[in-house]
């Protein structure tokens, strides 16, 4: 009799072990919160549900130089958190083999609301975005196939892909979905402006006056709450005679799109200098000086700025004060967006996001 119960016992243990092994690893989903009063995001979360595991994988990829040919150029080398994920103090960013990028690296945040990417809108989906810098010879100069091989060879990555996607398969789609899970969570909505809007704070006098001027002269393009309407406009910047960048026309081949560039968000603008698609302006003052003196020629120039934007010195001062209220220090200091492992070096305890699950 005894041997029967022993066999049964062993069988039971085996069964438990097998079902334990086959069990899909649990993922911890993260819900994406739309700030009050903001439009619905355009990113398709259904086909890429955000999880803590996917987010952490995307974060590791974003900070990993192995995505570039020589190992030096992680996404984060051009998109730096303290500059709201723009390149701090560089007109054009540095890429592989001492090259320059052809354009100024934009700040990265609120990407879930952005319908198209790059200054010319050439990229139609956030997931497809990383493929451009990875393969561009002026940026990371790698091939997609090589990057995937490097990831496959790394046990740490295999574990993380399994945790995020259920098995160890590593392919372009999974890599780019993971990167999206990280960058789509870069939501910036805690500037002083946001707090004022929520009734938690109030503007000082210059900021309040600046906000009034801004609503009169700027929101036609830099529309609240995202501070861009994501359209492409020619504000009359003369074409650079070395770069010959035609902007949106490169994508549409329409001469009516010549020299049009995506309206950049002005959130965190005090941090993301230099400004404009080729970084030709060093300060906000330079941008304002351009707007007020500009008298551009050219058929595609936006009708609202055909004669520039009249601005007095006083108005420039107030506008600048207002634009500085768009800086979100909680965002640039958020340890979740810092290089992997950063939280464990932080003195303050972080809330355990696994708890709610």
């Amino acid at each position, binding site marked *: 009799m005894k041997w029967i119960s022993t066999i049964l016992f062993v069988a039971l243990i085996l069964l438990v072990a097998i079902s334990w092994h086959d069990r899909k690893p649990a993922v911890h989903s993260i819900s994406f919160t739309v700030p009050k009063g903001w439009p619905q995001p355009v990113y398709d979360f259904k*086909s890429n549900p955000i999880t803590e595991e996917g987010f952490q994988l995307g974060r590791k990829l974003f900070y990993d130089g192995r995505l570039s040919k020589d190992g030096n150029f992680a996404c984060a080398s051009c998109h730096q958190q303290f500059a709201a994920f723009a390149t701090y103090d560089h007109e054009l960013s540095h890429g592989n083999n001492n090259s320059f990028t052809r354009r100024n690296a934009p700040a990265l945040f609120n990407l879930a609301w952005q319908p198209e990417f790059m200054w010319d809108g*050439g*990229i*139609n989906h956030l997931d497809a975005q990383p493929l*451009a810098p*990875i393969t561009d010879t002026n940026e990371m100069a790698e091939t997609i*196939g090589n990057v995937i091989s490097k990831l496959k060879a790394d046990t740490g990555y295999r574990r993380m892909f399994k945790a995020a996607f259920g098995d160890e398969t590593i392919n372009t*789609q999974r890599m*780019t979905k993971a990167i999206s899970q990280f960058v789509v969570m870069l939501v910036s909505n805690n500037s002083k402006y946001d707090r004022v809007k929520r009734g938690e704070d109030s503007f000082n006098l210059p900021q309040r006056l600046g906000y009034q001027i801004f609503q009169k002269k700027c929101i036609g393009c830099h529309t609240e709450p995202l501070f861009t309407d994501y359209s492409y406009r020619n504000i009359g910047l003369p074409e650079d005679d070395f770069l010959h960048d035609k902007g949106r026309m490169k*994508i549409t081949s329409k001469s009516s799109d010549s020299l049009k560039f995506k309206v950049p968000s002005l959130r965190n603008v005090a941090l993301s200098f230099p400004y404009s698609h080729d970084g030709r302006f060093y300060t906000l003052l330079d941008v304002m000086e351009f707007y007020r003196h500009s008298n551009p020629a050219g058929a595609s120039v936006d009708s609202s700025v055909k004669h520039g934007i009249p601005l007095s010195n006083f108005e420039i001062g107030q506008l600048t004060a207002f634009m500085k209220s768009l800086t979100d220090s909680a965002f640039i200091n958020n340890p979740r967006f810092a290089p992997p492992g950063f939280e464990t070096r932080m003195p303050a305890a972080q809330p355990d996001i696994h708890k709610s699950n």
Partner: protein
Amino acid sequence: MVLSGATFAQHSISIKFENYAGTELLHVQQTYINGAGEQFTVRNFRYYISNIVLKNKLQSETHEGYFLIDQSDDASKEIILQTNLDSVSAIQFLLGVDSLRNVTGVQTGALDPAMDMYWTWNTGYVMAKLEGSSTGANTPRHIFSYHVGGYKEGEQTTRNIKLSFNTVDFVRPKKIIYISADILKWFDGKNKISIAATPLCHEPGKLAVMLADNYAAMFSMQKE
């Protein structure tokens, strides 16, 4: 899958693509002459096939899936499908990748951007690629390079291909459909294309559409 009329047990059918330059089987690095009288060699020839529909007089059957036919990879030239049709008298397919797959992020399998049939800076698939060299091409190493793509209105480069056997039905025991693709049609069709005049096509637009109008006529069903 749309079925009407009698159904038969599933069996496999093979579609074999054979690439030609005129009447000769295409060989890499062999010299050919196009309609403009230009001598050229081919280094690389690839195209996407999708949305295959098999037909006979009574029935029609749609097969999902994307296939990349690559001159340098013989295995890629054979597509095996499971069918319920006992005979096939016509075949339809899309040359290229439908718009939806161009706008919904990153895909897998034959559509993985790592296949090198994808534009990263202006999102979209290269539907077909023909690359080689010709002394008339005023480019480094005299290369010519046609990467034909574009899915937006006015720039569409996918083409619906319809081929049929005129007289006899394809009968069941043979189970192979041979389709030939003639690269000379790229130069000589609805539009006359000269390598010397236009050696490069690397973006959606007018030249890409002209090449697409030409390659729309490159396929034929082979008689055995």
